[in-house]
């Protein structure tokens, strides 16, 4: 939770439109699910910072890793950085995943939702958990860091929408199939909203506590502007708004209002 200038150590294409960046920064130790808020340019277009999850952290080197998909002007600017370039950042920000120890956990990633779950997997294993990692991508060329995960001791279960690798179809269908036989102590998910809603549904059906990482357009990233608010249930069942940036991005799945009034 600080303001810093990071130095790009590496920045390279790892899959179609997806880059991995290493940044040397002097920050406090982040937890999985936390994010950094980066300026993507020196002028006013783009104007706001962009939130990116922490994909990994190397305490010794003082480096964080980011994994990002180029979708617009901010991420395009990031993709054009070369080693030695400077990037202004805030973070680590937000509330990340809360990990148990010694349990059996399902991690469910959809697309670029893989970014924070990689870091989460490493941390979960370090806490003595067994990790089954459900990874859904469009196509096999979007599969990343399988070897690293295997080396950590993660059991990787893959689903591709085009059937080019692993289970053909949605990762939530794969998870649903496994849930019929397997027993998890917790589910941790990051990905598109539809996927998260499906995960929340499965978690409720099987009474497994689930944590999901939400996205919303952000401005300050600090909890001040209320720009990134999402509707969540209060304890009394009424709906209120909480900030993705400061009260999230990770929320218990059962607290999230999956269908706000009109979208």
């Amino acid at each position, binding site marked *: 939770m600080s303001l810093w200038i990071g130095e790009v150590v590496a920045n390279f294409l790892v899959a179609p439109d997806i880059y991995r960046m290493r940044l040397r920064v002097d920050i406090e130790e982040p937890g999985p699910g936390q994010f950094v808020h980066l300026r993507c340019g020196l002028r006013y277009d783009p104007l706001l910072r962009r939130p990116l999850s922490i994909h990994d952290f190397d305490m010794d080197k003082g480096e964080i890793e980011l994994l990002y998909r180029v979708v617009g002007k901010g991420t395009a600017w990031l993709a054009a950085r070369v080693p030695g370039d400077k990037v202004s950042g805030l973070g680590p920000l937000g509330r990340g995943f809360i990990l148990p120890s010694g349990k059996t956990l399902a991690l469910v990633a959809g697309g670029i939702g893989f970014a924070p779950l990689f870091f989460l997997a490493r941390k979960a294993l370090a806490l003595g958990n067994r990790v089954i990692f459900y990874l859904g991508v469009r196509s096999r060329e979007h599969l990343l860091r399988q070897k690293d995960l295997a080396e950590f001791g993660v059991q990787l279960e893959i689903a591709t929408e085009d059937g080019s690798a692993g289970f053909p179809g949605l990762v939530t269908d794969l998870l649903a199939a496994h849930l019929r036989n397997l027993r998890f102590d917790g589910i941790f998910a990051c990905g598109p909203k539809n996927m998260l809603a499906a995960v929340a549904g499965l978690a409720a059906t099987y009474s497994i506590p689930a944590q999901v990482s939400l996205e919303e*357009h952000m401005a300050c990233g600090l909890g001040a502007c*209320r720009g*990134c608010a999402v509707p969540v249930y209060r304890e009394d069942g009424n709906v209120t708004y909480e900030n993705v940036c400061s009260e999230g991005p990770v929320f218990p799945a059962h607290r999230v209002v999956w269908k706000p009034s*009109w979208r």
Partner: protein
Amino acid sequence: MEKGEDKAHPYPNLTVELAGLKLQNPVMPASGTFGFGEEYSRYVDLNALGALVTKSITLEPRLGNLPPRVVETPAGLLNSIGLQNPGLEVFIREKMPFLRRFKPPVIVNIAGSTVEEYAELARRLEKVPGVAALEVNISCPNVKEGGMAFGSDPQQAARVIKAVRQATSLPVIAKLTPNVTDIVAVAQAVEEAGADAVSLINTLTGMAVDWEKRRPVLGNIVGGLSGPAIKPVALYAVWRVARAVRVPVIGMGGIMSARDALEFLLVGARAVAVGTANLVSPRSMLEIIHGLKEYLREHNIDDINEIIGGLEVPFPL
């Protein structure tokens, strides 16, 4: 002793007087972009600011609008927060104790949906320790009743300010909207009604469309535009108003740097508020204060008040 070393009379002088308040420098946050100070206190020494300005407070808690609530536009930010705030009671109980620990005067921004609500807010804040002044938001584009509806019409605006004026002895700052044919008429009406200062501009009403999904980007459809994109509109409004009223003007709209702040002072603002820039970089205000000081030093100007209204215009327009 060298110039600049005298603590009692720091050099150059950045203090300005505003509606009976003495500000150690003319830089303050714009309402709604600085929360209740706490959120920024890790990044900014709140004691370094000219004043502390709260997010708009309403009598009752407000949930705010449907998400998404913010979207970036070229060099701008469109927001439709909808005055999400915990309500007056919680504000007094939970936010004021933190704010009053700091040196700079606390300016509480209030918003109501009826004239009576504004008056009630003013009455109840009068007695709260640490409240130095009220900024009356009659210019919020993101709520259905009240807000901008009051600020769009000189008579309505005057009614609100008169009611607030009668309900409190605190200094009253009227916050004006640029979404009008003649902002000078509104400024003069609120001055007449007893405002001790005016602040401008609030956001320009606008919308953003998602061409792929064929729907508005903001949950609330419509929002308020802020940031560098609107600076030319803001400078023009401040320049006109500052020459048309006797009360001081707090200028805002797209101030990102000390140079921007200088421009507002030159066109006649007595103080400036920084909004969107806080969202981009939490240390913006500190950099602006520092930059102003440097500018005065480099140009051997003893007192920032010499800059205010110092624009040289070639002919009366």
